[in-house]
């Protein structure tokens, strides 16, 4: 009896040893609470972006209904303080909410700064060209009439009036896709700020085939034109598009806004 018990006991001891050693390598062992990566590094930034920004700005900063942030020129052109203000306070009157502030659920100022740094590190093209046209409006008096003629020769081919919606949503004619849709819709004009119009003209949306201020554009006949719009021309276009805001109560609402 006793002689037979020895291997059993050894086996048991070996099992116990195995168990206690391997216990720490089993898949069920909870991972130690890892420090969450800072927002200024890509992984931390991406997680934060996916949680709070991707809904409007799109997965990976593209193809969202809001301005694509995965755009080096845009990120390089907008001063950090402006970005900071936008993220913290939002853009009042538009669909950009503020994520900071003193509320319990708000993101701290330091985190917002880190977030912007992380965004630039992740998406800003280091060789990104500085835009020649300043992102904010100049002091020049822009004429809407000038904008109207310019619009007809540079924009109208892709942004025809909404005779009906199907021109946008339906099949496209010709070799050049006319995807833009009506930007002279008064409701659209009321919903967006001058700065939104300006930012859209300057930086375009290459994910949705909208050219930047550098073109290429299409004339009314569909001829391709590669030339850069000047500061005055951008101002004129913005003035023209803003003139479609009809309701007087709303027209002054977005002046001096942020992008």
């Amino acid at each position, binding site marked *: 009896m006793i002689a037979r018990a020895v291997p059993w006991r050894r086996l048991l001891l070996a099992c116990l040893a195995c168990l206690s050693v391997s216990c720490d390598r089993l898949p069920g062992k909870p991972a130690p609470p890892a420090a969450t990566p800072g927002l200024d590094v890509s992984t931390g930034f991406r997680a934060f972006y996916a949680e709070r920004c991707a809904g409007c700005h799109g997965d990976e900063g593209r193809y969202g209904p809001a301005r694509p942030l995965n755009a080096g020129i845009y990120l390089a052109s907008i001063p950090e303080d402006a970005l900071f203000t936008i993220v913290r306070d939002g853009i009042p009157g538009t669909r950009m*909410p503020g994520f900071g502030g003193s*509320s*319990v*659920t708000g993101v701290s100022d330091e985190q917002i700064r880190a977030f912007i740094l992380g965004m630039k590190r992740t998406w800003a093209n280091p060789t990104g060209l500085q835009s020649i046209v300043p992102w904010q409006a100049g002091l020049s008096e822009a004429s809407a009439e000038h904008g109207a003629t310019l619009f007809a020769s540079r924009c109208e081919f892709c942004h025809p009036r909404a005779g009906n919606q199907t021109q946008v949503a339906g099949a496209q004619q010709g070799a050049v896709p006319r995807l833009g849709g009506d930007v002279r819709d008064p409701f659209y004009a009321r919903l967006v700020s001058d700065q939104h119009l300006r930012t859209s003209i300057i930086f375009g949306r290459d994910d949705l085939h909208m050219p930047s201020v550098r073109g290429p554009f299409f004339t009314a006949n569909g001829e391709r034109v590669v030339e850069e719009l000047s500061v005055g021309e951008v101002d004129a276009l913005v003035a023209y598009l803003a003139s479609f805001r009809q309701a007087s109560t709303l027209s002054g609402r977005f002046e001096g806004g942020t992008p």
Partner: protein
Amino acid sequence: MSERDTVSDATPSATASESRRGFLFAAGTTLTAIGGVLVAAPIIGAAVAPGLLPEKDKWLSLGASSNWTPGTTVLVKFLNPGGAPDDGVTRENACYVRCIEAGKFQVFAVNCAHLGCPVEWFAQSRLFMCPCHGGVYYEDGSRASGPPPRGLFEFAWRIQDGALEIFSGRLPGLQEGT
């Protein structure tokens, strides 16, 4: 055995002993009952009383009433007035302060009127939404949709020395009927 024998004899001593036994039994049950009640009172009392003690006056300040911007609703933290350090993070509590105009407020409990889950305020759609069973409330706390039988619970508020104070400390429930 011998005792039963004496009972059967109807002698005077037997009647005496029977009455003595009856007295002893009565005394025994009475004493045990009294003793039992005396012991049980503090035991049960200690277990039950904390939940039954009457509410005390618990006005607590949330800060200067000028801290709030009219037209906004914000989440405000406070410490449970009856709390103890042993409560840890559960000593904290929160409410929504809606500033309608300067000096005019609504203070809502975070607890959904359905089953007490924490409702979240969405400033964009001006709605409170509950993550448990989908109760939704408008910004004035009235029920918008979902299972809640009523609007959000409100705390009584007052302005004392320029500070917004709320009457709180109790987990709100349907029986309070604010």
